[in-house]
């Protein structure tokens, strides 16, 4: 069985950044494994721009952003396997994988970095009533067909959900000559970024119906149309508001789920809110030497933050294999308080924070003119004024190592006040 210092599962932005950072920090042998035919993950179907504003101070397309990291990975001569599916990871860090040329292969790694990303919620996950015709796609699947494989998915389109990928596909399909009739969103606010509401929907006159959802799908072989109804404050359809929209294609952009089947097999503990591993400040999971980063941990809005988080994972995986990780020391627990859905990381080992640690979180509803307050017991560690917060935009708070010393009872709570 071949042995590696570090095995990275997934060659998207998280895996690429983690592998590169691990190699730069002295990891000997690094192997990156991906199931696709090329590196870059979902970035390769993101032909639109808006990537890299934080990391490179430039506005790149997804493909351009990926290419910078792929180039660096190759320059560092990091080994990678494509078209290879990882089947299992054990607690002992034995990884089983399969591909067409080598068949079934087992390797052993001293550290593992989980970077499998996430997958899309499907029709089955949200239970839309109606018949089951063809022509219903998740937005990301449609994006892959159009942008990589060159197939147009339809001509008359309805989109359910206002996630970023759905809005980006509304623009993409309009540019390619389709008619996007409407985007329906069950919540009272758009799911994705404001920038996409403006540049993908408003620019092309595509209506966005908030507080609306699909109550029926019609069609025998191919989809023929959907019925959309308004929702009341309890999210129940209001009788008499139903309206029929003829269409040949329905796209779903109704959320993403971290893909953690492999993590479960390795006995990594998952957070029921994020659907991803419980991690500490070094992006290490509850299994020592198993790290995780990117959308497999929690769904990000910006790839730049994925890159930053993955660099942390890569750096610390290298430290672990080089015997520099050390013991645990005092562990601070982060606790979501009023108005906060979750916080990543879940634990902070106080002695391991060099200069500062970034806490990522999402609020559970829209807030205007509030404060994000980080407290340990009654001691306020940091308070930040926020003119506007909504669940669709991730919040980030930087906490310095110095101020963590005040966290005497070893807990940090964040509240919206």
């Amino acid at each position, binding site marked *: 069985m071949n042995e590696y210092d570090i095995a990275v599962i997934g060659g998207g932005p998280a895996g690429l950044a983690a592998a590169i950072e691990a190699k730069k920090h002295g990891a000997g042998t690094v192997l990156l494994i991906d199931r696709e035919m090329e590196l870059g993950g979902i970035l390769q179907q993101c032909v639109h721009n808006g990537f890299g504003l934080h990391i490179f101070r430039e506005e790149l397309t997804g493909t351009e952003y990926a*290419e910078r990291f792929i180039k660096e990975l190759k320059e560092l001569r990091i080994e990678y396997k494509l078209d290879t599916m990882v089947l299992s990871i054990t607690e002992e860090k034995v990884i089983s994988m399969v591909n067409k040329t080598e068949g079934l292969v087992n390797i052993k790694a001293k550290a593992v970095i989980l970077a499998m990303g996430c997958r899309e919620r499907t029709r089955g996950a949200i239970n839309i009533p109606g018949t089951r015709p063809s022509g219903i796609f998740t937005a990301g699947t449609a994006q892959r067909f*159009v942008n990589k494989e060159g197939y147009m998915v339809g001509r008359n389109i309805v989109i359910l959900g206002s996630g970023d990928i759905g809005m980006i596909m509304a623009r993409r399909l309009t540019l390619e000559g389709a008619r996007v009739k409407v985007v329906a969103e069950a919540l009272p606010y758009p799911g994705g970024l404001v920038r996409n509401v403006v540049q993908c929907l408003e620019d092309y006159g595509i209506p966005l119906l908030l507080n609306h959802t699909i109550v029926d799908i019609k069609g025998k072989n191919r989809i023929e149309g959907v019925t959309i109804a308004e929702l009341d404050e309890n999210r129940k359809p209001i009788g008499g508001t139903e309206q029929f929209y003829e269409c040949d294609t329905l796209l779903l952009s109704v959320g993403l789920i971290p893909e953690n089947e492999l993590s479960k097999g390795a006995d990594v503990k998952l957070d029921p809110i994020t659907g991803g591993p419980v991690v500490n400040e070094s992006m290490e999971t509850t299994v020592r030497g198993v790290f995780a980063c990117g959308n497999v941990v929690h769904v990000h809005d910006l790839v730049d933050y994925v890159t930053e988080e993955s660099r942390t994972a890569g750096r610390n995986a290298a430290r672990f294999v080089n015997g520099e990780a050390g013991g645990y020391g005092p562990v601070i627990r982060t606790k979501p308080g009023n108005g906060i859905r979750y916080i990543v990381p879940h634990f902070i080992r106080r002695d391991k924070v060099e200069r500062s640690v970034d806490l990522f979180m999402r609020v559970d509803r829209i807030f205007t003119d509030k404060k994000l307050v980080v407290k340990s017991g009654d001691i306020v560690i940091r308070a930040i004024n926020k003119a506007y917060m909504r669940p669709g935009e991730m919040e980030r708070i930087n906490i310095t190592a110095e101020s963590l010393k005040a966290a005497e009872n070893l807990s940090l709570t964040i509240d919206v006040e």
Partner: protein
Amino acid sequence: MEGSIVTCTICPIGCRIEVIEDSSSDSGYLVKGNKCNRGIGYAITEVTNPARILTTTVKLNNACLRRLPVRTDKPVPKNLMLDCMKVINSVEVDTPIELGTVIIENILSTGVNVISSKTV
């Protein structure tokens, strides 16, 4: 005087900003509804000369994936987007192609080039 409403995309707040022609002000416009100063320039540009980077794909021959991602190297006026698409969709390219290669020079005489956004 007739005002135009634009949604600001500088930050997540997304202010609804009203822009009204006003010859008495320095910029020539009266801007209302912005919560910060960054919104002023954005809103005036959106009303006077809205432009976007256009990103799309062209047909790619002799490769396992059949589309090459491309983009304009500078923003193009918003009202020319669909006309640009017609020109771009008439183009086919062959591998190998480097990222940044000019695929269409000076599209519709805008002074903007369409370039490859991937190496294949």
